[in-house]
């Protein structure tokens, strides 16, 4: 702690020049990063954390502008440098890792060339650069480097791509690495590997890292120090352990409370009933619709491959798995968006299919679907009222009662009647998700399929929606099939858990059993990979 700061940000101010207003996205932010340390910047969306990181690189997008403060790297104020001088700093002294490794790599350049370019720009000759590139790829853990180096980004998985991005960042031995949500787009298991890698690089190379994230768990696992940002200001700072265990600022306190924790008490309200609302038997779904030729049959790809499960009245069954494991396909098959290729779906004990509109309507009286993205699940051209009206009319509510019932639905999700005539863009993400839920409740269903209902929301909003869901479940005796990749959330809301991998269910049991005593190795991997706030601090 005694070393001179590598990076000193002092009183930084960034203003966005919008048409009707001046918006201070970063307002008097100061912090230090010391060599060999990892500083986390945490905050919810719009807190100004990314803008801060971009300001350091002088890469703020139009119409944003740095309007005050200084950014000293090794004592030199980067904000005073002109663009040409900055070119020499970027990638050489400070390097950046981006959120979405898929978007961050040039899709039409071989990965080696992209690494070489980083060296090339800073004057490394061709032969040396080639050799160094292979070395770097090796260093970040790319398997079979000579062959992999010739590949294009799309031929890699997300985790591998992020390793390439890190390799590029490390190319010129920068003293500071800025990582802007580098694991947000990745699955937990991959995230764990990348965090490992970053830690290792810090240890081996002594590079300082400025780590921007919204995830307290990740901060806990990786960072030494943390600053918490809210609405463009720093509200709390200090060593990770101190901030996480004993936050002082009310915002931080609230934030910490909202985060689902892996040691919070489990739900103890498992319903007594044995009535099975939904049963799925040996379900298979073929998602390969691409036509390979005129005369050949497409080769089937089963995203759901022989899955059986049941959801009982009033209970929450969580379906957990990483991206591409088939959990969404499964739920979409149940409501008829995808067509089953085999197996059976039983609702209230009767086999159903959802081929025709008639069948769908019948099914919709029992099962409703809530989508992940509240932005796109509401028609932008229709008001909340119109969206509700459509659902109510389908459910058989007479036109005269629609208005009253709509207000009633809104009340159930804690929204006032004034929202009826608003268009989706006038709502916040959380409000939109509430309307999505209200629409699903229109037909008084017995089961809601909740497809990642909170993963697009900030933590504080997420907590509110989870509470709403629990309340609704109690009031209306609803059953939930809760699909999520977030184990902490799942642990908090579910009675039972099914773990899905490669289209199959690998483990199923009560929440307690699965979390405390996982049987399947995959479940165990998932659990270890999930950043655990308390374990990290302890």
């Amino acid at each position: 702690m005694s070393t001179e700061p590598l990076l000193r940000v002092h009183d930084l101010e960034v203003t966005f020049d919008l048409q009707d207003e001046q918006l201070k996205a970063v307002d008097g932010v100061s912090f230090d990063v010391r060599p060999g340390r990892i500083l986390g910047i945490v905050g919810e969306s719009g807190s100004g954390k990314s803008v801060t990181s971009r300001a350091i690189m002088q890469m703020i997008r139009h119409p944003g502008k740095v309007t005050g403060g200084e950014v000293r790297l090794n004592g030199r104020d980067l904000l005073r440098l002109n663009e040409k001088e900055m070119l020499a700093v970027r990638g050489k002294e400070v390097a950046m890792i981006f959120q979405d490794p898929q978007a961050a790599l040039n899709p039409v350049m071989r990965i080696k060339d992209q690494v070489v370019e980083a060296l090339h720009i800073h004057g490394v000759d061709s032969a040396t650069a080639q050799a160094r590139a292979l070395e770097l790829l090796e260093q970040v853990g790319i398997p079979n480097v000579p062959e992999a180096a010739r590949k294009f980004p799309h031929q890699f998985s997300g985790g591998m791509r992020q390793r390439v991005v890190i390799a590029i960042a490390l190319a010129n031995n920068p003293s500071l690495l800025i990582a802007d949500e580098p694991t947000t787009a990745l699955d937990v298991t991959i995230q764990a590997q990348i965090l490992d890698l970053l830690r290792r690089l810090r240890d081996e190379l002594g590079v300082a890292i400025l780590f921007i994230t919204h995830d307290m768990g990740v901060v806990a696992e990786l960072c030494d120090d943390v600053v918490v940002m809210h609405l463009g200001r720093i509200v709390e700072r200090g060593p990770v352990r101190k901030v996480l265990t004993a936050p002082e600022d009310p915002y931080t306190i609230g934030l910490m409370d909202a985060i689902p924790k892996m040691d919070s008490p489990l739900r103890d309200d498992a319903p007594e009933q044995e009535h099975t609302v939904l049963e799925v038997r040996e379900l298979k779904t073929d998602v390969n619709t691409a036509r390979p030729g005129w005369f050949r049959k497409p080769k089937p790809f089963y995203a759901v491959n022989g899955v059986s499960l049941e959801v009982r009245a009033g209970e929450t069954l969580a379906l957990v798995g990483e991206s591409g494991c088939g959990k969404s396909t499964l739920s979409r098959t149940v409501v008829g968006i995808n067509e089953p290729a085999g197996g059976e779906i039983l609702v209230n004990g009767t086999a159903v299919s959802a081929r025709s509109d008639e069948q769908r309507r019948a099914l919709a009286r029992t099962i409703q679907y809530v989508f992940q993205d509240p932005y796109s699940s509401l028609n932008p051209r229709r008001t909340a009222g119109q969206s509700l009206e459509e659902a109510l009319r389908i459910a058989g509510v007479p036109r005269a009662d629609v208005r009253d019932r709509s207000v009633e639905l809104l009340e159930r999700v804690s929204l006032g009647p004034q929202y009826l005539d608003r268009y989706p863009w006038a709502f916040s993400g959380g409000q939109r998700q509430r309307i999505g839920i209200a629409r699903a409740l229109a037909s008084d269903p017995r089961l809601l399929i909740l497809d990642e209902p909170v993963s697009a929301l900030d933590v504080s909003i997420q907590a509110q929606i989870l509470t709403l869901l629990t309340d609704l479940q109690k009031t209306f005796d609803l059953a939930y099939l809760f699909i999520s990749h977030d184990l902490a959330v799942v642990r908090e809301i579910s009675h039972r858990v099914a773990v899905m991998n490669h289209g199959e269910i690998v483990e199923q049991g009560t929440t307690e059993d699965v979390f405390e005593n996982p049987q399947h190795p995959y479940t165990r991997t998932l659990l270890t990979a999930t950043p655990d706030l308390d374990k990290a601090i302890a």
Partner: protein
Amino acid sequence: MRNNDVTTMGAAPPTDTPPTDTSARPAPRTRTPGGNATVRRYLAAFRTPRGVIGLTILAVLLLTAVLAPVIFPHGYDQQTADSLRGSSGRHLLGTDELGRDLLVRTVYGLRTDFSIIVVAVPLSMIAGTALGLVGALSRVAGAVVQRVLDIILGFPGVVLGVCVVLIMGPGWSALVVAIAIGGLPYFGRQARAALLEQMGREYVVAARTLGVGKGAVLWRHILPNAVDPILVGGAIFVVVAVFIEAGLSIIGLGIQPPTPSLGSLLNVGIRFIEQSPMYILGPTAVLILLSMSFSLLADALNETVIRK
């Protein structure tokens, strides 16, 4: 899996970066009913610099064309012995080979072009959109329609026009038909693209899972959201339509004399380009203004209505 709100800071278009919380933005227009909100968005387009210029040019042209019989009550066929004269006080744009005032003929030519556009473009737009949306009702029919549209698309605009004229004989209706058919694949594809995009949208899926019928989904959810790009496409297609009219008229397959159209004026003007280079000036300028006004409007709409 991806936290959208976080993404906003990094990768979304810069104008979308107000670092407020996801709490509701101040929404002064909250209570406006649907129609007005849409109209407002279009009006906003007309307030951009391009929109203002485009609309002004169009308004002037349209007004002149509509009022032509009032401004020039003697019609476009006042023949005199003074043929192929240059610009003068009496004839601002000079006279044609039969001594008719070229300003008058240009204005009436513009009128003819408007009359073609007004019929052909909406016709093409409606029919093309309908064809493009067929896929929503039947997958097979949709595929077949696309094939047919592909074949029409294979015909370069003028070749298609020549084929239509071959059957119908030259004239106003042949031009309308040629333009309308020419636009089918254009609007059909646009509608289909919008359709495919909308079909993947969650609110469409949501409506389908509710059990809303195909027709209702098409009418309530897909069409309103597909209409913007098609309208912008329509504005761009007007330019194409003007070109087709002029192109066919230039090779003598368009509007027939004595009725002037911008293209038929050019057709004759080329014959006298050595004697009276002035001849083609009026129709050329008006044609460029006309197509420019629509392409500016398309740009303006595109900016404000689609990329919002």
